[in-house]
């Protein structure tokens, strides 16, 4: 499967405070399709949700609807990275026995087939283990600071 990167500039941001998406100036005419993944600085930014002729909407990893299969590099635990409309994300289903610590890296997992494996997503900044809980509560910081980037690469299949 050949993957071709399409460079694009960010031309718009979401009008709502609770949704995190960007509009880029590459669309179907440049070969962009829904579910193509978007990267910047060698890290995951999000995935394309809506495509028109010369522009597309990208759902960011911090969007509350975003769920990305991930893996902790240091412990190899399988997790789900979930956006929550802030600058941070949460790890879902991080087992309570996982030895997570601040600075651990989270990368994409190819489970589901949407994302390529081993693409950096985020870094662990805080984890808490509540008594009786099945899973840890883990806060992660995305590798890409969305507010600082101006252009992205869309990886088209």
């Amino acid at each position, binding site marked *: 499967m050949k993957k071709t990167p399409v460079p694009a500039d960010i031309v718009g941001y*979401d009008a709502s405070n*609770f949704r995190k998406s960007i509009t880029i100036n590459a669309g179907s005419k440049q070969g962009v399709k829904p579910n193509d993944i978007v990267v910047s600085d060698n890290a995951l930014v999000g995935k394309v949700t809506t495509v028109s002729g010369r522009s597309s909407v990208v759902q960011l990893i911090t969007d509350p*609807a975003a769920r990305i299969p991930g893996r902790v590099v240091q412990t190899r635990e399988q997790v789900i990275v979930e956006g929550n409309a802030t600058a941070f994300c949460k790890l879902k289903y991080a087992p309570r026995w996982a030895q997570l610590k601040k600075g651990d890296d989270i990368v994409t997992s190819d489970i589901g087939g949407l994302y390529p494996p081993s693409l950096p997503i985020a870094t662990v900044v805080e984890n808490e283990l509540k008594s009786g809980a099945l899973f840890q509560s883990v806060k992660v910081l995305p590798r890409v600071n969305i507010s600082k980037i101006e252009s992205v690469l869309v990886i088209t299949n």
Partner: protein
Amino acid sequence: MRWLTFLCILFCISLFQSTQMHWINLGPAVPDLYFPLVVFYSFLTDMKRNTFANWLTGMSKDLFSEGSFGINSVFFIATGFFIWSFREMLYRGHLVTQILITFIFSFIYNVVYAIHLAISFHSLCLSETIWMIFCCSLYTAMSVPVLFWIFGRFQPTQKLFFIQG
């Protein structure tokens, strides 16, 4: 009420909100320029015009936002109706009233929107969301003096002071 002026204002707000507001964010919070427009027209116009103006404002926000299409229209129409229904009790021409009403209703609107999101996606953190709602509402209310002055330049605002109903 001049509809052409309203549509021009709405167009400019949509452009600013989706391209420029990002540069003046406070953490995750950016001012919602649509909301002062809802409050302004709820203060200014009668029920029918108010509902239609708020519907257009909500649709415009829906167009530039991810999520269920029409959700902002419903929320803006409801908010506009509540403000319109008790506006006679308020001294609408006073800046403090305008700021307070914008803050209170923006807070309520954001809480309802956050509840809708929490039900849909189960992924919001309570403490961070409440803090973000507070920051957004405060930031939106702070933009009221400038925005109301701009809206007032283009629309007949004497109704805010003298005409009842």
